[in-house]
């Protein structure tokens, strides 16, 4: 029991808390130097292939997952407990002290700052002083021959508010990790999205979050417009228009989503994250029967949206796979071959190489939808198609019917967010109050002479001016 109490005392001392805070700072450094799995998994893979032994050992101490590692969490949780244990008792103390009077005037004022004596005491000195204190909004304690006055009580209030807000902030961040969900969905213009897990391309749930907790809304993508600077080709604006229904089935409302302005439903937000093109194609077999028709999502490769993708036709016999590129504004140079010269669609081209054989879809290994595994296939054709053109590749025909824009929506539910914001705002408020309030005490003692003195916490300036103002008030009275 004694030991426990000792541990608790050590843990909740401010020194420990500060050391923990510094440790949290230090512990966050490796994550900014080594690539992190949750931010950039490709880079981690790269690092591992280049430094296999080093990476093996680094991985043992979670250097690639610093911010979710047990040791990082341990520091975080200890800091949290320490902060509570440190600040809570002080807060209770502080609330208790609200109505209390300032402490008694000390016996010997001459040891204090700005000590001064005035000769010729007057009977009214204490009254004058009290008036001056009242006018300057000091809290006053008057005894027989002395006054003890205090000002700047709100410094401690602000200080405690700040530290308690940090606790709230830490709690909110933790809540974000325990509740909520985060996922992505790629939608073509015209597609409908219903907020259920199956509509996502990928989604992850926090520990205590179930599918039933998802916000019940649906979206229909009406239009997406990207604007580009004609000289630099840099994007200047992205505007996504959707028809949204919340809850599902209610009347649809027109909403606009932009990069910096997500669509919000409670704690769920829908962000516009990325965009690209989906060429619309139709494939017919030798007999002319339609095998496939629709928009195929392609992946942008550069700033001018040169995009690559795959058209897979597992139902044709033999199976057909097409490795394709889409060029929104086609251009050609001897060095680079065909490429896109501008991100908007001005002169679109679909380049396909057609492969025949086994797509390998039933091998059990998941395949990228943007690539064709051509290891068991042979190439039977190569063609560049303009809009509306038809290509006969022997086993059938491919029609380049058009194109659509796609958008990648990131949908995040973080119920802790709002508390984090409140915590942050209160923290700044508390900080301002505590850093800009000067806390000081001033005493006056009257017997055969008048003595005044003061004490400023942390040596904040301005006490001298106040003391001399009080002194002037007293001296004016003397005359």
């Amino acid at each position, binding site marked *: 029991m004694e030991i426990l109490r000792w541990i608790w005392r050590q843990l909740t001392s*401010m*020194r420990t808390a*500060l050391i923990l*805070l*510094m440790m*949290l*700072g230090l512990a*966050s*450094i490796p*994550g*900014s130097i080594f*690539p*992190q799995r949750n*931010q*950039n998994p490709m*880079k981690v893979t790269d690092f591992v292939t280049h430094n296999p032994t080093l990476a093996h050992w680094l991985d043992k101490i979670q250097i690639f997952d*610093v*911010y979710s590692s047990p040791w990082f969490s341990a520091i975080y949780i200890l800091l949290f407990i320490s902060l509570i244990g440190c600040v809570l008792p002080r807060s209770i103390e502080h609330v208790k002290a609200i109505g209390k009077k300032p402490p008694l005037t000390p016996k010997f004022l001459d040891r204090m700052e700005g000590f001064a004596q005035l000769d010729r005491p007057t009977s009214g000195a204490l009254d004058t002083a009290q008036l001056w204190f009242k006018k300057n909004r000091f809290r006053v304690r008057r005894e027989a021959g002395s006054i003890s006055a205090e000002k700047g009580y709100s410094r401690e209030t602000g200080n405690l508010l700040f530290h308690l807000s940090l606790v709230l902030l830490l709690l909110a*961040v933790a809540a974000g990790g325990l509740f909520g969900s*985060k996922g992505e969905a790629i939608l073509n213009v015209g597609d409908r999205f219903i907020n259920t897990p199956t509509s996502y391309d990928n989604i992850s749930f926090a520990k205590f979050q179930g599918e039933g907790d998802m916000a019940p809304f649906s979206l229909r993508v009406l239009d997406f417009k990207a604007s580009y*600077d004609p000289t*630099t080709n*840099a*994007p*200047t*604006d*992205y505007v996504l228009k959707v028809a949204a229904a919340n809850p599902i089935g209610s009347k649809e409302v027109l909403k606009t989503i*932009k*990069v*910096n*302005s*997500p669509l919000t439903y409670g704690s769920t*937000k829908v*962000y516009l*994250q990325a965009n690209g093109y989906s060429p619309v194609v139709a494939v017919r077999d030798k007999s002319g029967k339609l095998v496939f028709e629709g928009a195929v999502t392609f992946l942008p490769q550069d700033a001018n949206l040169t995009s690559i993708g795959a058209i897979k036709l597992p139902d044709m016999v033999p199976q057909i796979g097409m490795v394709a590129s889409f060029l929104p504004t086609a251009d050609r140079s001897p060095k680079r071959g065909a490429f896109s010269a501008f991100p908007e669609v001005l002169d679109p081209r679909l380049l396909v190489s057609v492969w025949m054989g086994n797509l390998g879809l039933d091998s059990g290994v998941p395949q990228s939808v943007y690539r064709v595994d051509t290891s068991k296939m042979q190439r039977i054709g190569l063609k560049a198609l303009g809009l509306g053109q038809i290509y006969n590749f022997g086993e059938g025909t491919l029609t380049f019917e058009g194109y659509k824009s796609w958008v990648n929506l*990131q949908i*995040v539910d*973080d119920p802790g*967010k709002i508390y*984090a*914001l409140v915590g*942050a*705002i209160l*923290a*700044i408020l508390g*900080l*301002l109050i505590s*850093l800009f309030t000067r806390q000081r005490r001033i005493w006056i003692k009257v017997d055969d002479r008048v003595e005044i003195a003061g004490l400023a916490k*942390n040596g904040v300036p301005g006490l001298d001016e106040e003391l001399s103002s009080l002194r002037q008030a007293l001296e004016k009275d003397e005359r």
Partner: protein
Amino acid sequence: MTSRNLAYLSNYSIYSAMALYTIAFFAHAIEVSFSVKTTEVDDKTSFDFSRTEKSGRIGTAMMILGFIFLFAGVILRGASAHRVPWGNMYEFSITGALAFSGAYLFALAKYKLRWLGLPVSIAVLLTLGTAITVLYRPSAPLVPALKSTWLAIHVSAAIISGGVFLLANTIAATYLILDRMEERGGRSEWAKKLPTLEVLDQLSYRLVAFVFPLWTFAVIAGAIWAESAWGRYWGWDPKETWAFITWVAYAAYLHARVTVGWRGRKAAWLCLFAGSTFLFNYIYVNIYGTGLHTYSGL
């Protein structure tokens, strides 16, 4: 006026500001070095401030003029791109230099700080020189992710905090130099004009305490912006991580002073350390870092 003309005008303003800061630098250097030459034989009046008073005043006048031209340069740069002038590292640097010299002028009005003009003018010159030679980029519109009112709020708060942090650093460094001198038997003649160690110590603390809330606000505004742009308010991106480290370092500095009572040398070192985490974030993470904050082309 066309965008391009505005951008040229901005460049001329920056060049003019550099010329003015150069004059200011020499004026302050003359002030510092010539006030020590003694004409009297008497040991006790071995340096004479009045001789160089004029030079010091010229220095201050040039600092003010330089600030005005730099201010114009920053505003014109923004006008040329139809946005706040904080889109790339060149623009961060000129605005940062503006904040730094602004912090100096502000402190100059409140305290007797003219001596600081020498290190401040050197630092501003170096920043502007690097900016215009190495970091310069033609004026261009922003990519969509940077289009937000939070850009203006977050970046201006961060840049102002940075300017004041670096000023506090300059003072802390001066403290350490003078401290060493005194330890080795006394200040050199030129340094006798500078304030006492205690004043320097207080001053750097005051500056940090003054901007720490602003820095806190800058970090939070960044989180709010990140939330609206990227869907998460905190992702331990390198830039965010180092902003946090800077925050922790300054919090440690404030605590060390207020609650543990560190003063003087130890506090000055801690202040320098905290300031260098800020610089590290700006230089290293911007150039070599990866992450959402690093937009291509600096």
